[in-house]
């Protein structure tokens, strides 16, 4: 029987952060060695981009280079959400990508995760023996945060083609066809399993995904951990649905410097070394002193 059912939890009932905490406590009470999530004192940055990406105009600084970390609500809400979850002890206190993380899944200590769709490539490899035991769903709305069905932990991809490369025109054409045409997107899915991002390929892709054919040369083990086999045939329908809620954080050219500063102060909030308002004020101060205008790199 499903663990959530055993704990009397309906995922569809989780609408607010309080609901999530209540459900997390109920789950942990039912299964004392298990949690509905994991979160250590140094959470992976992608959780933050997911959460903040759902907000209107999420950005570190205005276009004239003035930092808005203390005034843009997404930052305070992101820190508060992490702090609430961390303090409620509903998440196994280990960080993503630590050596404990994979073992946490294997050991069934981690029985859920709020994460992006790229996890489909990792979870089946972490716990192939748990095939058929995992289900996916859209993120809950999680009020009072901005509607958390929206958001993304990515900022997009940029392909750089050098003018002086042997066939620049051909390279542009190849990329266009591969990613932006129905035939190209379907070919990429067949070759490496990437979900097509173009809407024109959706119907064909879904019919292919519902009746998946094992590619030539793929072993039984690898085939078993393909998303549609591991999570069930409805996986891709839900993944495509999530694309309708795509919103991204407005990264600026200094994001690689801004992100570690934000992470550092989030860690101080979680370990109790700083309050949320102190952390945000200090993060903004650090960005102003160390980066200045983020658009002038």
């Amino acid at each position: 029987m499903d663990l959530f059912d055993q704990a009397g939890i309906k995922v569809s009932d989780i609408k607010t952060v309080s609901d999530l905490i209540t459900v997390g406590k109920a789950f942990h009470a039912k299964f004392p060695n298990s949690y509905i999530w994991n979160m250590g004192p140094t959470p992976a940055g992608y959780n933050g981009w997911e959460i903040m990406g759902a907000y209107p105009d999420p950005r570190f600084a205005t276009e004239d280079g003035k930092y808005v970390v203390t005034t843009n609500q997404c930052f305070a809400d992101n820190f508060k959400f992490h702090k609430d979850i961390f303090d409620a002890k509903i998440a196994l206190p280990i960080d993503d990508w630590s050596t404990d993380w994979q073992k946490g899944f294997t050991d069934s200590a981690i029985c859920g995760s709020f994460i992006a769709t790229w996890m489909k490539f990792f979870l089946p490899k972490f716990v192939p023996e748990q095939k058929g035991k995992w289900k996916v769903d859209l993120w809950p709305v999680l009020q009072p945060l901005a509607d958390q069905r929206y958001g993304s932990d990515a900022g997009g991809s940029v392909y750089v083609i050098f003018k002086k490369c042997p066939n620049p025109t051909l390279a542009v054409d190849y990329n266009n066809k591969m990613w932006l045409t129905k035939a190209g997107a379907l070919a990429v899915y067949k070759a490496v399993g990437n979900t097509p991002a173009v809407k024109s390929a959706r119907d064909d892709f879904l019919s292919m995904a519902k009746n998946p054919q094992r590619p030539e040369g793929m072993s039984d083990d690898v085939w078993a951990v393909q998303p549609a086999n591991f999570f069930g045939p409805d996986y891709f329908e839900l993944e495509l649905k999530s694309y309708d809620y795509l919103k991204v954080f407005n990264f600026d050219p200094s994001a690689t410097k801004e992100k570690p500063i934000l992470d550092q102060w989030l860690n101080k909030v979680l370990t109790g070394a700083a309050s949320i308002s102190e952390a945000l004020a200090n993060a903004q101060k650090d960005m102003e002193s160390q980066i200045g205008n983020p658009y002038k790199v």
Partner: protein
Amino acid sequence: MGTAKPVTTTQAVVTLAVRRRRIRWGDALAPYLFISPFILSFITLFIGPAIYSFVLSFFRYKGYGSATFLGLDNYKAIVTYHVFWTELRNTIFYWLAHVFVLMIAAFLLAVLVRSTIISRKNIYKPLIFLPNILATVATALVFQSLFGTEYGVINSLLGTKIPWLQDYGYARWVVVFLLIWHGIGWWFVIYLAGLTTINPEVEEAATVDGASGWQRLRYVTLPLMRNTFIFAFVIDAIGSFRIFNEPNVLVARGGSLANPDMAPLLNLLMSDLRSARFGSSAAVGWILFLLVLVVSYFQFRIMRGTGEEAE
């Protein structure tokens, strides 16, 4: 058909002098010719980039386009940034917390292995050196598994859930332990080599004079090993100020750098490099260079001074 002109004595002397001068020039130039490949590559790959990075440290430059002159702004921003001081403190901690234990343990092991107390020395020597041949990153990854909170070997053995790598108060000591474990073999070999340079007759003379084992160590071995100690301490200090892999591999996750509360000073340089802030990154590099210079200078002064006093 002509006949050879007879060579006068004066002509012969001049020819001989010219030949000798040529040979002298050849002798003088030959060494430079032999070392020229190194000199050229040293200038091209070290001196040149060093001068370039020094100039760059006064500019804002993202790796392409034009650079903007900032004067001392990069340096000012660095020394007024609290992370600089935190990471400097961490770096000094990693250095001081491991250096004495490492050096004493490595030296004592070398003395022990060289002594007559130990038999089968050929087994102990490679065993002690073994950790040093393992790549730092690989070792740090193994330590990650050992010190995991939930499923780490240490916690499993102790029956505890100590957050060794999540609480930076503990994690810094794990780094120190890793530095000692990984470095001991290297300094053991250096000290062993240093001990072999001591003339056994000196030690025998001390023994004949009635010196005990401790007295031989204190009054014969240690003073004669002074130069080896200076070398070891200075080189270890330089390496400690450049520490990067151990703390980062142990605690950083998902391709990011370690949290500044745990990170060494080199992280500030790397973080600027990753953000294409090459001017600021160069400035951190030069500050680091100055620190190493100052620390090395004082180590030389203190250790040379101590040695002279002892003599």
